[in-house]
């Protein structure tokens, strides 16, 4: 197939060149090979299937495990004028689902959440329409060794187990051997091509700072935000904390707003708009923030806690410096912070009592969803326990869950270890993803030596403060009547 990829890239997406690795991946996809592609987070993974979409004749199925990520990708495609795109997830009503399934072949890009894979109507339809490519996005979720295991994802393999299935493109930002092996074997890949890019983001510099109390932590963060310029994201662990920080820091004259899943959807959009329009310098967020925020010039990311895993940490700091310019990631922690992180990470994780509860309910022939409505199980707990109970015995399930829980705790210790030892932070993060780096940038990290003032600019006091306008003026502005 001879296609001028560069012309297509420019015409459809407005880019004049590919980022490292993209062209090779796209070429393999167009050659109908199975592909495992490893790219650093936020560095143009979606082009790898969006562009082939305009070359290949039939539909492209994209399995996307995070609804927010899926919606973001659908929005990006729509923004570019692509109308043949659909997000098929649990937010649809049964009627909408069955109507949409019937029209699947009229869509170029069909995004599915893993839960939708287990629906018979979806399965039947997908096996009856021509498909050019299957994309497993965030493919590490398929592996129980991945940091965000989604059991339903495995069903993908169960369906396309026949020889004339369409080619599969697996995308992830994880390069550990365990995960890569799981991806290619669970998806029954035929002699897959591996395209592995360096996961390092050299323009991001790492600082970790141990403080001895929570109040010191706040003071240090305040000082840093006052001294050094944004735009920046301050990540915290709870909605309440996000609101607290935002309130306190805005009292200090910093243009900041909070962002979390407890806010109205429209309010979240408004915070995004203000951040994009540089009316806010900082957003104080839970991990709900990031997806859908395509702001290239984020100069700082600050954490006030120990992230739940190295992978999540990499994901969050990866939102800095997408324009390639120098950016700073700072993590403040106390010795005790790991306990709080362990609590947050395991609080919602099922234990033996939950397994027994679901087992009893099933044996009694009752609907397990009632356990959720009665607040006896959370949705996450139900999802995890039902999957394993339908495949394994009670005892095996318990053993497995214990193992997974231990692993979650282990991941926090892994993260903490990176912070407290004396080795290079960059090297350790990259090692976590199964790679090594040869060349470190100057001012690499706080362990190798880092002068913050050489990386980020000092902050300039904002000239603008949020004021309401007279309503007539505001409506006039919206319609550019000035």
């Amino acid at each position, binding site marked *: 197939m001879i296609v001028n990829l560069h012309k297509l890239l420019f015409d459809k997406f407005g880019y004049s060149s590919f980022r490292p690795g993209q062209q090779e991946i796209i070429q393999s996809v167009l050659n109908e090979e199975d592909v495992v592609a490893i790219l650093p987070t936020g560095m143009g993974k979606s082009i790898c299937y969006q562009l082939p979409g305009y070359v290949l004749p039939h539909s492209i199925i994209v399995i996307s495990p995070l609804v927010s990520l899926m919606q973001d990708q659908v929005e990006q495609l729509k923004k570019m004028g692509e109308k043949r795109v659909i997000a098929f997830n649990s937010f649809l009503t049964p009627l909408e689902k069955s109507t949409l399934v019937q029209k699947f072949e009229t869509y170029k890009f069909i995004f599915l959440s893993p839960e939708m894979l287990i629906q018979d109507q979806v399965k039947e339809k997908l096996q009856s329409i021509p498909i050019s490519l299957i994309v497993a996005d965030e493919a590490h979720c398929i592996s129980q060794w991945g940091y965000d295991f989604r059991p339903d994802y495995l069903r993908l393999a169960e369906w396309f187990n026949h020889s004339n299935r369409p080619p599969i493109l697996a995308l992830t930002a994880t390069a550990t051997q365990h995960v890569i092996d799981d991806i290619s074997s669970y998806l029954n890949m035929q002699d897959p091509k591996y395209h592995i890019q360096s996961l390092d983001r050299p323009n991001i510099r790492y600082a970790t700072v141990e403080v001895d109390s929570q109040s010191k932590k706040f003071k240090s963060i305040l000082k840093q935000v006052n001294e050094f310029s944004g735009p920046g994201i301050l990540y915290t662990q709870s909605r309440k904390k996000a609101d607290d920080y935002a309130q306190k820091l805005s009292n200090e004259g910093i243009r900041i707003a909070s962002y979390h899943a407890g806010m109205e959807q429209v309010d979240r959009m408004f915070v995004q*708009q203000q951040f994009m329009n540089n009316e806010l310098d900082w957003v104080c967020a839970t991990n709900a923030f990031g997806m859908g925020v395509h702001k290239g010039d984020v100069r700082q990311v600050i954490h006030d806690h120990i992230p739940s895993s190295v992978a999540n940490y990499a994901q969050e700091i990866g939102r800095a410096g997408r324009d390639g310019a120098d950016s700073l990631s700072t993590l403040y922690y106390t010795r005790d912070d790991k306990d709080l992180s362990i609590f947050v990470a395991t609080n919602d994780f099922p234990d033996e009592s939950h397994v027994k509860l679901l087992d009893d309910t099933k044996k009694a022939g009752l609907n397990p969803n009632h356990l959720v409505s009665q607040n006896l199980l959370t949705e996450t707990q139900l999802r995890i326990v039902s999957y394993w109970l339908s495949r394994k015995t009670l005892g095996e399930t318990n053993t497995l869950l214990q193992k997974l829980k231990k692993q979650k705790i282990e991941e926090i210790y892994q993260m903490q270890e990176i912070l407290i030892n004396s080795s290079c932070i960059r090297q350790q993060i990259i090692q976590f993803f199964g790679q090594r780096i040869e060349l470190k940038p100057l001012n690499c990290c706080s362990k190798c030596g880092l002068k913050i003032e050489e990386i980020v600019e000092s902050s300039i006091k904002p000239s603008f403060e*949020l004021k309401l*306008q007279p309503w007539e003026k*505001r409506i006039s502005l919206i*319609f550019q*009547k000035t």
Partner: protein
Amino acid sequence: MFQKIILHIIDTMNEERTISAPFHIIRGKRSGQTIQDVKSYGLTKYFSLFPRLSIQIYDQNIQQMIQSGWLTINDTAIPKITILGKQKLKDLPILKLNGWLFRGNERTFFQRLSLVTQTLSHVKAKSLSFTPVQKDEKIQIWVRQFLKSFPYKSDEFIQSYYLEIMSCLKSDNLSDLHVSILSHRLAGFEVSGVTWQQLSNVLNEEQIDLQIYFYEGLHILLDEISTNKSLVLLPKMSEGIKSTTPLTDSAKRTADLYKQGYSFEQLISMRQLKTSTIEDHFVEMALNDPSFSIQIFFGKEDLSILIQQIKNQRTKKLRTLKEIFPLYSYFQLRLLLAVGGAQIDSKSS
């Protein structure tokens, strides 16, 4: 103000309903009991004020009011307002809410308004690639169809839309606060929306109070739109927002069958519902339809005398009425209350 609204409902219910009754009214529960409550106590304005209010938030507010000494709750869960509570109630402004008519649909109207405004603002700026502030697919489809039925890319169209918005927001019935909130909840090209938290900081009011003013503003705006004959676009955007049928969907089906001539007993088997549910539907019909006659449930008795006797008791508590009129069933008493008890919305205090 939110707590004072609850207080107002409790006060109006006169120790005849439990503490959950105000919750159901504010959530807009479509049940016979709640509908009867809003109608007979004249609380229609608050119906469906916060359709997604959680029981936790409601309980928190009740607890706070108890701690502030505004109300007490007895062991049968009946709330009673205190003297302090009575005083507090005096600062509750008379709100021009019309929850019964809009039932939460005013939110849909604003979603349409917000997305049409954002879209036209970007069209005007010739910047067609933007992230819609309204993510609800149904709203997006509606807005797309609405705009496509007009030459929406023409300056004339955008100008007339702009003028309609300006003319409506100029209405004397809207306060400065109303238009300030409404205009800052809209966004456009390089004009970001303002969050509730930010509005609360700048205006020094609780977020929930600003939201109540916002819904009040929308009710006034929608009223303006339906009466201002010079408007073309905004009336189209408010289609289907006002409830045309005052009945719940289920009661509507029962009513339609009843009008076709089926009897009460036939309806029970046809609809496969419990007797008590069908009874609820009849009470709803009695509450809402002035032409509906309840005579068939009373044989030859003179209903006007009976209704007057009920009114004289000055209570809407069924158990009390049952003790006074033991020969009548609860269902009959509810029908009598429905026909005779409906009153005009009471004002605060």
